[in-house]
């Protein structure tokens, strides 16, 4: 008896799973603004902030200021992390100073949670119902038969925290998926924290050299903000599951990120398989069993194309009276530009609905639509009907 206890009685060596309590298979309501899952994360029952649930992150990278100091700076841990009705105990965290950015609901952005938080669970991402399910759960209705891909979490090791120069250990967490992009067999990292499919710049340029539409767009990485080139892919295919017209992006900072991941797993990674592909599927990442399941939604009406839109982007301004919206950017060559909408124009209503009570993700969606349709924009100076444009046309 003594020897058996001491030897572990067949217990596995490796990262010890976190102790947790609550419901097994908790459904976390999420916002899917920017096509990533934003959920509310509670720390020690005291502070809550929205975070992104990211299969591309090995660790929980949190912004202490968003949690009013309940998360320690640098490498540390929190005693209790609440995700819906599930409480995880003694969760390792890395606290880094945020960039004062806000989540789509107007709260301070809390950071990202990764493998150290949910990597011991079967974790599912339901893009249609906007839920993250931690633990086993029955499948949603309206799904096609799935493909199932075995995986073994890759990578892991030690890394240096830039702010504190601390060396931290991080677990093997990378889920590597083979995919074919317009006939090219490529290797991707599964990344629910990526809005689009990310590609190495060289690959991106080779694909986009046929003259297809490209624009630049701002993107947030874990390491900060960057400017990306964005285009549209004709086809991305994983094990016979094809997604057409997926948006892809590339940038030098993304190249650095991909090189880092490639070094970590000792295999070249060509890109990040993000929401531009994943959102057409109920995605189940069964970490304990090492299996990735993709169930295609029969009804894909939740999938909207963010680059078929009125040719503007917006920004929200938060003050004591609430949120107001203004034009952040006007895309050249669009109907919005032709109608001389300009940056900083105040946007009060879309199609007659005032915007003051809406979050920015909802307002942004109101600008999307079928190419050639119109939206009625109420600016502070005038009301005009503006055409929806295709910003990323394929030749």
């Amino acid at each position, binding site marked *: 008896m003594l020897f058996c206890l001491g030897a572990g009685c067949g*217990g596995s060596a490796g990262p010890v799973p976190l*102790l947790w309590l609550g419901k*097994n298979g908790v459904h976390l309501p999420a916002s899917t603004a920017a096509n990533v899952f934003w959920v509310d994360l509670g720390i*020690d029952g005291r502070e809550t902030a929205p975070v992104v649930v990211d299969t591309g992150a090995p660790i929980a990278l949190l912004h202490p200021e968003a949690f009013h100091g309940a998360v320690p700076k640098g490498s540390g841990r929190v005693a209790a992390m609440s995700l819906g009705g599930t409480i995880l105990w003694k969760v390792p965290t890395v606290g880094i100073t945020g960039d004062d950015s806000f989540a789509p609901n107007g709260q301070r952005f809390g950071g990202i949670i990764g493998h150290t938080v949910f990597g011991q669970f079967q974790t599912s991402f339901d893009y249609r119902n906007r839920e993250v399910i931690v633990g086993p759960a029955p499948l949603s209705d309206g799904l096609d038969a799935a493909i199932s891909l075995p995986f073994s979490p890759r990578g892991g090791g030690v890394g240096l925290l830039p702010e504190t120069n601390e060396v931290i250990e991080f677990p093997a967490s990378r889920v590597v998926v083979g995919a074919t992009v317009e006939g090219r067999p490529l290797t991707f990292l599964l990344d629910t924290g990526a809005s689009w499919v990310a590609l190495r710049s060289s690959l991106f340029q080779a694909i986009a050299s046929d003259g297809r539409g490209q624009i630049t767009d701002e993107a947030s990485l874990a390491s900060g903000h960057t400017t990306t080139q964005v285009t549209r892919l004709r086809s991305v295919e994983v094990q016979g599951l094809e997604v057409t017209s997926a948006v892809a992006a590339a940038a030098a900072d993304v190249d650095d990120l991909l090189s880092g991941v490639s070094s970590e797993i000792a295999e070249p990674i060509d890109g990040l398989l993000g929401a531009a592909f994943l959102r057409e599927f109920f995605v189940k990442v069964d970490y304990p069993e090492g299996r990735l399941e993709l169930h295609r939604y029969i009804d894909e009406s939740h999938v909207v194309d963010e680059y078929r839109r009125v040719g503007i982007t917006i920004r929200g301004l938060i003050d004591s009276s609430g949120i107001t919206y203004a034009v952040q950017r006007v895309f050249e060559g669009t109907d919005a530009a032709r109608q001389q909408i300009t940056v900083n124009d105040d946007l009060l209503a879309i199609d007659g609905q005032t915007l003051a009570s809406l979050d920015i993700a909802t307002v942004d969606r109101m600008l999307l639509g079928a190419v050639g349709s119109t939206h009625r924009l109420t600016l502070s100076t005038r009301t005009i009907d503006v055409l929806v444009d295709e910003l990323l046309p394929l030749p």
Partner: protein
Amino acid sequence: MANFFMPRILFFALEWSILFSASGAWADPMPDAAEPPAAPVESSIGSAPQRGFSVGARTGWAIPFGSLVKGDSMQANFDGMVPLWFDAGYRLSEQFYAGGYFQWGFALVSEEVCPRPLLRCKSTDLRFGLEVHWHFKSLVNRGSWAGAFDPWVGLGAGYESTIIQLSAGEAKSHQTDEGFEFGHLQLGGDYAGLAPWRIGAFTSLAIAEYTNRTTGTPAGSASSSPMHPAMHFWLTFGVRVQYDL
């Protein structure tokens, strides 16, 4: 009982000081020729025979040191522990006792890992194993210097299992860390003038390492070995009572 024993503890410390500062006291166990020979001291000062079974109980306060596993200090997890310690063994001679011990301890979980009111936490610590005690006063002047006071040292080894139970509302989970107690060193002093009872005080330093962790969650039970186990220590101060059969 506490009022009675505290002076004995102070006396005990004083005697230790004398023992180590009196040159030749250890080197020459024979009595000084100029002095009359010390009167033989009855073993254990009472009617209990030198050999026989003994049972005992102890309690006190234990202070944690070291780490549960690497990077997770004991003091971040526990404020301390109140042990209930039971001994049972055999007195092999006037000097030696061998037996077993079993300790159930109520550990106080630190708020650092148990944020209230979100969580409620309780913890118990089990230790069990074998020990030997050496009652050494007869080495000097055949024990006459100590009277009814009986100092002793002890060594032991065994196994330890620490359970932390968490609850939040109706939800409950637990974690058990266990591993070998490589050893413990004890130092004590008994008042043996109430034979067959002995009452006294002790301190103990236990050295152990948790090498297996079992978690019980709503998903079931899972066992694993920490990647980076670490040594931990319990430094215990307390009082004890022993009954010599």
